[in-house]
């Protein structure tokens, strides 16, 4: 073995120049994870009380370097984490493997914010539920780290590793309620489906690598884009997309979602439904805009199919649910369809930019309204101990504030103006129409029809909460802990602001095309 290593007779290893500033958010996040692990090791039980506070504060702390980097990339500049001196060049050339552009940083901020809200949602839930606490937050942080890495990763290996880094902790968290068979089942199903999906994705990646011999997306784009159609490229693109279609729970790769959501601890469900899904979209967007660029003939019909199928089937299944979490799972499937829809026309160069910012915009609004809905559920479940819709009857009579906030989230999800969700849907519509193609118009009609169906189940929940009588006339108020109040405050504010005053935050999601795309 040593012989083998010694044999390495080749040019001196040249350390690439590292842009520590650009990497600072990741480093802070990494330190946060390490700190949490260390605290657990050193102080054991005594650290329990403060782990969630540290996790939350730490995530807020990550915002600082993120915003600092943001000001740098604000005008469409691109930072490269690594640069190397190429022969003949005076300045180091950035390596395209890890890129911090406007898009990446916006998504990173979104992930960290979502992570923060999830920590807020988890604080009391985990502390009162007798879970493994510090490990919980440690895994949460490492999953968020995976997402943050995903936003910048621009090569196959980076995307694969980031995907696994964000998924593996999530598999475990879904099963975190150890003595509960349902939680166990949830984790197992999620794990198995996740592994199968990443196996398919890996096979696709191996083919994409095979087309060019490089793992860099920009190189792959050169090899597959604009060329004659090649079965390998098509197979590779479809298989890789399948891996992320699973992650975003698009039909027909959605089956895990309702089962996992139902069984997993509710804050983890919120995390899966929002952060994990967003991460899948981030990868999908990166791939479509960088890796598959020029192969619209493959991914456009694929995305069209996924969008239409997800919307329709998700909605039809959501109609029949009696459990709020399962309903949200299917509604999430439908929302996935709405979010994918712009990608079905993204190949049109004129509207590629609009399609990208539309998707990012939808993701941000979706994150706020979905997290909020789960937050209300967590708060209500403190009293009802259930996620059945029928147990939310008459919530208005004992928790008017929660009911009002929930109504905002539900109506936003349904796309009623002037709440954020409406604006998100409007932009999807407008991108589809702008494409001015038959497929675009058809998909717009599918979106329209599905918006009609979707309202039914959202409105039914609102109706149950507002108008029914509370079960057994029990009107004891819900004790909502401050962290939940904070989480709901943040999410409801974002949901409303995105709808009522989008200009305040609208530009947040107006990202320019990805670097290299």
């Amino acid at each position: 073995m040593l012989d083998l290593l010694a044999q390495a007779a080749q040019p001196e290893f040249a350390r690439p120049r590292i842009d520590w500033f650009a990497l600072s958010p990741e480093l802070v996040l990494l330190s946060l994870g390490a700190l949490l692990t260390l605290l657990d090791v050193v102080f054991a039980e005594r650290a329990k009380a403060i782990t969630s506070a540290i996790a939350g504060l730490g995530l807020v702390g990550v915002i600082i370097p993120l915003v600092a980097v943001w000001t740098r990339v604000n005008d469409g500049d691109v930072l490269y984490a690594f640069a190397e001196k190429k022969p003949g060049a005076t300045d180091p050339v950035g390596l395209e493997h890890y890129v911090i552009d406007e898009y990446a940083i916006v998504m990173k901020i979104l992930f960290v914010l979502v992570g923060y809200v999830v920590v807020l949602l988890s604080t009391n839930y985990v502390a009162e539920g007798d879970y493994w606490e510090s490990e919980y937050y440690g895994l949460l942080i490492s999953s968020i780290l995976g997402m943050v890495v995903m936003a910048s990763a621009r090569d196959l290996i980076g995307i694969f590793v980031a995907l696994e880094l964000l998924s593996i902790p999530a598999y475990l968290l879904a099963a975190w309620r150890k003595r509960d068979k349902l939680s166990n089942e949830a984790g197992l199903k999620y794990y198995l489906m996740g592994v199968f999906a990443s196996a398919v994705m890996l096979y696709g990646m191996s083919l994409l690598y095979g087309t060019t011999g490089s793992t860099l997306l920009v190189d792959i784009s050169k090899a597959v884009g604009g060329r004659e159609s090649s079965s390998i490229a098509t197979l590779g693109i479809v298989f890789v997309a399948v891996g992320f279609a699973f992650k975003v729970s698009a039909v027909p790769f959605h089956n895990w979602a309702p089962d996992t959501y139902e069984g997993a601890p509710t804050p983890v469900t919120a995390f899966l439904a929002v952060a994990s899904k967003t991460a899948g979209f981030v990868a999908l967007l990166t791939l479509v805009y960088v890796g598959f660029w020029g192969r619209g003939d493959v991914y456009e019909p694929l995305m069209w199919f996924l969008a239409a199928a997800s919307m329709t089937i998700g909605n039809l299944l959501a109609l029949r649910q009696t459990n709020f979490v399962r309903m949200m799972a299917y509604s999430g499937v439908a929302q996935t369809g709405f979010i994918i829809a712009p990608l079905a026309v993204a190949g049109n160069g004129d509207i590629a930019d609009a399609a990208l910012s539309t998707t990012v915009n939808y993701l941000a609004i979706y994150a706020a309204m979905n997290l909020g809905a789960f937050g209300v559920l967590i708060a209500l479940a403190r009293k009802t101990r259930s996620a059945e819709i029928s147990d939310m009857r008459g919530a208005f009579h004992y928790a008017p504030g929660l009911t009002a906030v929930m109504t905002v989230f539900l109506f936003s999800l349904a796309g009623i103006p002037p709440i954020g969700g409406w604006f998100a849907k409007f932009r999807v519509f407008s991108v589809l129409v702008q494409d001015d193609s038959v497929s675009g118009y058809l998909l717009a009609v599918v979106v329209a029809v599905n918006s009609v169906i979707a309202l039914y189940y959202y409105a039914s929940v609102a109706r149950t909460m507002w108008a029914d009588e509370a079960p057994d006339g029990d009107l004891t108020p819900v004790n909502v802990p401050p962290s939940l109040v904070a989480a709901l405050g943040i999410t409801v504010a974002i949901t409303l602001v995105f709808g009522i005053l989008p200009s305040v935050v609208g530009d947040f999601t107006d990202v320019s095309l990805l670097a290299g795309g």
Partner: protein
Amino acid sequence: MKFLLAASEVPEVSFTSDVGGGFNIILEYVWVIPLIMALSFAVILFFGKSLGSIKIGDSETPASSTIGIAAVGTCFLLSLWAGAAWIDHRDNFPEADATSVLEHGGDGEHSDDAEHSDEAEHSDEEGAPAYFDGDGAPLVDASVGGAGAAALVEAGEDGHSEVHASVAILKGFTWFQSGGHEFTVGILVDGPTILMLFVVTLISLLVHIYSTDYVHGDRRYTHFFAFLSLFTASMLFLIMSRSTVQFITAWELVGVCSFALIGHWWEEKPNSDAALKAFLTNRVGDMGLLIGMIILYFAAGRTFDIMTINEMAVAGEIPRNTLLIAALCLTAAVMSKSGQFILHTWLPDAMAGPTPVSALIHAATMVVAGVYMIARLYPVFFEGFAISGSSINALALIGAITVVFGGMLAFVQDDIKKVLAYSTVSQLGYMVMALGVGAWTAALFHLFTHAFFKAGLFLGAGSVAHSVHSFDMKKDMGGMRKFMPTTFKTFVICSISLAGVFPFAGFWSKDEILVGTGGWGLFGGSGGSNGAYTLMLVMGLVGAMLTGAYMTRVIYLTFFGEFRGHGHPHESGKRITIPLVILSVFAVGAGLLNLPPGFITGEEAGWQERFGHFIEPQSAAFPPIGHATPSYTLAIVASILGLLGPAIAVFYYFNRVEARSKVEGRSLTELPDGLTSRVPIAKAGHTLLAEKYYLDHLYTDVIAGGTKGPVADMADWSNKHLIDNVIDTAGRTAVTAGQFVYTKIDQPLVDGAVDGAGKASSAFGDELRKSQTGKVQQYAAYLFAAAAVLAGVLIIVI
């Protein structure tokens, strides 16, 4: 991404409060009115219950309704002020100037800079700041002169500018810019806005007052008033929307309120089902609205501004086909919101809500939102459907069908509110038909008069129902005139107005619509420059006949005959009857506002067409509104036909049914099929018998007794055999036809299709659920197989 600057990038709101003096200032601040109602909603929702009751006079009134009434009362006063200010503003609008400016625009001549400055100066002299808008220049200001004409100045990039005159008041600012879209919001105040402002606040005020009694003691009293406030706010917001986005927002909001209020009594499943049905049916139309508006957004060069869209549509800058598609999409929205045939089914179901809600939302205001939308975006429809040149178009046809079908359906309802609901459907059909044939003013006029008499009818029905605790005319009503004289009188007045009897309000507005169709020149009417819509005229006349007939039936079943219910009905309290009286006064007199030209001569000629004068937009952004020449012939023919329906019904009910009731000794509601055998006459029926003879005698005196000899005999014979049979047959046929439409077409087909779509999607959902077996390896099989199939298909296809 200049995110840090995002907030400051919004153009400054610059209101120039120069409306020619203090009085007209309200026109620039009408947005305060919905704001008051929105505040009222918030206050009632969050503090309503904790504020307890307020003692007014001798009765305890919960604070929530007091807040609501105070708010809507203030709004009503502000609306009156706005109306007065508008009259002032409009009267000072120099039509001659407008025309000359219009010609500039119409001829395509770009006024040069000198002219432009002249115009601007001219405006300044009159105290009218200019409204700048255009591609290059940001929207800086929108304001209008109170004392004079407002000028709509379009500054092109090349310095050229077009000057359009518009009497409308436009104010607004860019709400936000995002993703390449610019969203403007603001107010657009013109004739229709002022009209609706008055109608909405007045009816809402009356309904608020009425409701304090009607829903008294309801456990959701507070919520009821909160949602009334929210609804009023949304409706007011809708009518003054400047941009289509605002319009959609308000449109959805009124839908939500309607949903919440229909489902006020959730506990009963039919009610909640009705609310959801209403909501869903409306959503179908909402999608039409959304798609239509988005088409217009792109067609008009990325703008949501209603005035700009109108202007471009008129100027022919949007291709006809685009307008046609947009108009068709919007028509879907109208069909659902304004209950046009095949999407009307939610409206009768919506009667599950409390009666004041039906009066406010499902008769007078929300359901006319669709009509209002056509009126607002009229150029789109006018150009899209080529209204001026054709003799049939989608809008007119849908309206006409709705008129007749709605009227027939109203025949066979036993629920008094359902009769009124179908009647509303039918009347909305008139409005849509009027817009379809180009009679813009007539449509809005009918909207105006209809609001009063229909609200009056609903509230009257509610008053009766409040007393007998039921809406079933056949089971629980009858003879109510004895117990509720005020309700009876107002109800009859409103019914006469609805039936279009001279000189009640309904006559004038309906006549104007019929004239506006321009059909059959033999009546002397002419639809102005628009086409001759003969079919619509016929349908309209049939509708008029039906209207009188079904209202007669309602009046008979409710107020005549013997009381068939239980308990001791009594007249409702003052808070219920006073709104009824007010509404019936309007139902009588509102028609005088738009007397046709030539009806009055001499000094008072100024009263002619006042309504049209104040309501019609004076703007380049509007197609020429055709003014039909009124026709005495048509008025007489229509009146005869309009009275023929009620006459048949009167004979059928007051004569035949009444007689049979006497014979049977109980209060009947319809004639039993076939000739029945003699039933021993009960003592209780004696008075009725006498009365029947009395009526019969009168009838004989009038018709037959006036003549002698063979004529009298002949008349007598024809009365006994011919007229009797004809009327009998006509009545029976009408009932059968209505029954047929209701049981064979409306319920199974239309309603069934709507329900069926829901059921089918549920069933499909159930099937899909079976694929969710819970077995993870099953899921894995889907995953791998789907991956393989998707890849395979794409490899083969590409």
